[in-house]
């Protein structure tokens, strides 16, 4: 058996790839559900009901999708330039932490319309700071940023743990390690009343479109794509590689930091060490499922959110561990890379 490169890539295959990947991932998870002794189709039906069955569950799914869109965008912009930022989890936490630090006391005196944008920027900046360390190590010492950005995640969570149990600790939290809450007027307005859904969703969607525009129409977009596809060729064409990577890193880290900021300002109000159920890591899957397309990220994030929120409901009624959602999402990453492979190669003999 041999693989042969396809000369022309059909649009149908490219568009179909994510759907095929998701179907295969769902089928494989179905086997696991069956092994656990539950009816597979019924389980998936309940996942859908859990995700969309009521006004509440639908808004919950969208709420969950919001940070996933942002971390997905963070991964997508970085991967496009072949910057392997696997540190979105840590950047998410630092963004959240920065918002809690500045939004609860230091800047709480500012009026809402000023405070909210300022806090969002601060959150993004915090995320940027964290990714600049792996970037610097790559540019200065040629250290593979995958491992360093991963290790930064553990450091970031420990920093959060230290501060929410230290200077940022909420004295009214009955001894729980939890930060003080941000001021009420720092909280993002709701998108749908009597729900947790906030305007963070709108911010994420708008950002996805802005990034799509930036990537396809601007000098920076062209250069960062060139840098990712063929660094040597990009250098020859005069693309400033380090500077481009620096900008990409700032964008990526900023998006992940923003995700953390928005999660605090939209939902929680405070920071703990379990603020993120792996938003940073799931963002990688979201980006890959979207084939690094910013607009595709919106839909990939929705799929992922459906799995996570839906699995909660399904788990309660059928007794299947909620981890089935994580399994399915991880599997869909693997099936997606295989599906993409088959858009580029065909099997011969």
């Amino acid at each position, binding site marked *: 058996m*041999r*693989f042969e490169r396809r000369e022309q890539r059909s649009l149908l295959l490219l568009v179909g790839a994510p759907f095929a990947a998701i179907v295969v991932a769902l089928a494989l998870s179905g086997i*696991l559900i069956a092994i*656990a002794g539950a009816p597979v189709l019924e389980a998936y039906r309940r996942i859908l009901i859990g995700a969309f069955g009521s006004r509440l569950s639908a808004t919950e799914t969208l709420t969950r999708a919001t940070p996933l869109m942002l971390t997905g965008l963070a991964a997508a912009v970085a991967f496009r330039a072949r910057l*392997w930022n*696997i540190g979105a989890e840590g950047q998410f936490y630092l963004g959240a932490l920065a918002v809690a630090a500045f939004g609860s006391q230091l800047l709480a005196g500012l009026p809402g319309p000023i405070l909210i944008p300022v806090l969002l920027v601060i959150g993004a900046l915090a995320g940027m700071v964290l990714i600049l*360390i792996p970037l610097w*190590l790559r540019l*200065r*010492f*040629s*250290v*593979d940023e*995958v*491992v*360093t950005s*991963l*290790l*930064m*995640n*553990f*450091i970031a969570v*420990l*920093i959060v*743990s*230290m501060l929410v*149990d*230290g200077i940022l600790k909420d004295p009214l939290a009955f001894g729980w390690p939890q930060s003080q809450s941000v001021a009420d007027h720092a909280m993002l307005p709701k998108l749908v009343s009597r729900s947790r859904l906030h305007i963070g969703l709108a911010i994420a969607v708008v950002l996805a479109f802005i990034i799509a525009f930036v990537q396809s129409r601007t000098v920076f977009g062209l250069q960062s794509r060139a840098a990712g596809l063929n660094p040597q060729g990009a250098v020859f064409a005069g693309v400033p590689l380090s500077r481009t990577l620096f900008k990409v890193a700032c964008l990526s880290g900023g998006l992940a930091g923003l995700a953390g900021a928005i999660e605090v300002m939209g939902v929680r109000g405070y920071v703990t060490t379990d603020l993120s159920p792996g938003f940073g*890591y799931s963002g*990688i*899957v979201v980006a*890959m499922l979207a084939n690094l397309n910013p607009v595709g990220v919106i839909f990939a994030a929705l799929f992922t959110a459906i799995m996570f929120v839906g699995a909660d409901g399904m788990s309660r009624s059928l007794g299947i*561990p909620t*981890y*089935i959602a*994580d*399994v399915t*999402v*991880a*599997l869909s*990453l*693997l099936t997606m*890379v*295989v599906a993409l*492979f088959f858009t580029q190669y065909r099997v011969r003999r």
Partner: protein
Amino acid sequence: MSTLIDILASAGLWAAILRIATPLIFGTLGALLSERAGVLNLGIEGVMTFGAMIGWLAVYNGVDLWTGILVAACAGALFGALHALLTVTLGLSQHVCGLGVTLFASSFSYYVFRLAVPVAGTPPTIIPFQPLEIPVLSSLPFLGQAVFTQTAPTYLAIAIALVMAYVLFRTPVGLAVRMAGENPHAAEAQGVNPMKVRYGAVIVGSALMAVGGAFLTLSAFNSFFPTMVQGRGWICIALVVFSSWRPGRALFGALLFAFFDAFQLRLQTVVEGVPYQIFLMTPYILSIAALAIMARRARVPQALMQPYRRGER
């Protein structure tokens, strides 16, 4: 100052070093073997998690401890085969596939664990490996306490490091592995199938990673809980670079690393006023520092992360 000396002079510290180093030795050797053949296996974190879970679960269900280790190794080998299928046969990005394997293996571990063991107030436990009494050696003063109070898998880890050094540098199969990682085209031209060699190295490497994970639940602790691997896999990847892809230095690197880890754990109890999180950060900071120091100096296998396709140059 005197407390520092007390810490360094305590046999407990040295015993802890070997205990902390053991899973790192297994994991680093596994990653090293795989990378020597040209395949980066970032699945390590998840494979270690799965090894920890499945080894523990097997023992919890009545098999003996060594069978538990074997079960973990077999499961690790299967994940290795998956990673090889994606990165060797299909030649896909080793970064992305490795992360995918990690995400899949860890979430699959938690899923299986939750299915098998219902939620309980205190996690169920097993009786782990006991320290191996070695005649004469174990009763030596200090040294007996410091070095010869380990469980059997620790000695196994050290033995495997030596065996791997021998195999890589003194046997034809070791040469084939290194050639597959340096220049798979040359290997192919000389009648060595680099695809098969890479499969073999990734599978055996993953088995070792899983055994490293199983050590956590079958010897270091006696129960399984999610996130217990805590980035040890990533640290192993850093240690491979630190070791310059040499098993002997990998052993040394793991021990050095464990020394700092054991030392900081003891320091935590005597130093006041410093948040314990600062100490917990040291392993990760050390790993990053090791990478920064060694990345340029190390002699990287030339074909690392390069997929090999027959007939394509």
